[in-house]
């Protein structure tokens, strides 16, 4: 079943309910299962909220992934602590992971296609994640705290990170690679087992 957001045809009830419920799982995973990665700044956290996004976009096409991310972040917006900025950044990074991955998988429905797609997704998410930090999150937080100085202070503990640029290169970028890889790995393992159920009908 294909969905196309741009067509004026009404989205089918099946698409609506699947996207809604997958977004629900996504919100739960975002709230319950997040943990910091060892050796990384503690506020950079991995959560599994993008696993349902990837599974949805693999099973029902890239548009589904887009919709799930949108709903997930709209709901998260109801509890926002950052005036929507954090949700905007999450939206962009999640899309950048799911879209390339599902577009490639749609063309090549094989294990190889899935792996290639996810690699593309990891690269895109790292890129977009780093840019989102540079242009959205850092300007936002520096309105409230002297980030430059905090990072200079960090330089005393970890000589690699002592400015915004080095923070992006040695902090945010590797974090996004790890995060995207964990999510992709999880999806690989899960999708194989779940796809039988999805496509059985």
């Amino acid at each position: 079943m294909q969905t196309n957001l741009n067509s004026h045809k009404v989205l089918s009830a099946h698409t609506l309910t699947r996207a809604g419920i997958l977004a629900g799982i996504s919100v739960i995973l975002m709230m319950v299962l997040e943990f910091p990665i060892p050796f990384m700044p503690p506020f950079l956290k991995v959560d599994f909220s993008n696993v349902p996004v990837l599974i949805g976009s693999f099973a029902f096409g890239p548009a589904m992934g887009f919709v799930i991310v949108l709903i997930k972040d709209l709901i998260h917006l109801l509890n926002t602590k950052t005036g929507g900025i954090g949700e905007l950044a999450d939206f962009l990074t999640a899309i950048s992971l799911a879209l390339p991955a599902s577009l490639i998988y749609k063309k090549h429905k094989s294990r190889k296609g899935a792996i290639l797609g996810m690699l593309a997704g990891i690269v895109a998410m790292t890129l977009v994640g780093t840019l989102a930090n540079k242009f959205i999150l850092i300007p936002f937080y520096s309105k409230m705290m002297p980030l430059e100085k905090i990072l200079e202070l960090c330089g005393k503990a970890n000589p690699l990170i002592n400015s915004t640029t080095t923070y992006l290169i040695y902090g945010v970028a590797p974090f996004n690679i790890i995060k995207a890889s964990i999510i992709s790995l999880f999806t690989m393992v899960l999708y194989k087992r779940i796809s039988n159920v999805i496509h059985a009908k």
Partner: protein
Amino acid sequence: MLKDITLGQYVPGESFIHKLDARVKIVLTFVYIIILFIIDQTINYALFTIFTAMLVFLSRVPIGFILKGLKPMLFILSFTAVINLFMTQGETIWSYHIVGSWSLEITKEGIVIAVLMLLRLLYLVIGTSLLTLTTSPLMLTDGIEKLLEPFKKIGVPSHEIAMMMTIAIRFIPTLAEETDKIMKAQMARGADFESGNIVRRAKAMIPLLVPLFVSAFRRADDLAVAMESRCYRGGDNRTRMKQMKATYRDAVAGAVVTLFCLVLIVNEIIL
């Protein structure tokens, strides 16, 4: 822990703010946040404090609920204050020599910046919490649907987005309960979710997530069949039991906020 998931933090009430139209509240909250990041002058912070205090008073939300919303922010609030306090250069008014070239200094500018930044962060949280404290998630969803309606012409499916949000909100407690149940079922079979290193804990998630997804898909398809058998066909010509109506209250609120913004902006320009 899963049972504790709450979406939004709605406190039912009959106050002026509660009765405002959800659309108006969403838009005004955005204006509030934007203006919060524009202001810079101390006098404007003072006005903003009065304005926020007035909002909190008008909403009649018990102050405890607002403080509860601040609790998760406690760390970042104090962290920000301390960093600003000690790391701002300027006229030293207090210093403490530690070792060698290391010393702690508090400057006059540091105090000012620490207080102002703290207020900014505080009001950001209070402003957004006030919206969710006085508006139920479903009203917010309706508000989002209405606000997105003008974009229908360029292909934004506003009704469908709201419907999916409603479904997600409706099923989050159900899914959370389900997750809990699966967790207990797997624990009864000897699964261990709590101990071990990260890799082991991640692996433990698989027997939890597979049944969760499978049952979620089943639920989704059941719901879709139920909707279709009741002739669901999208948002066109669909009527509502409760129509959203903007009243004189919304006009007053809009006028007050606009006036307030103008005063702040004029202050910024003059000073």
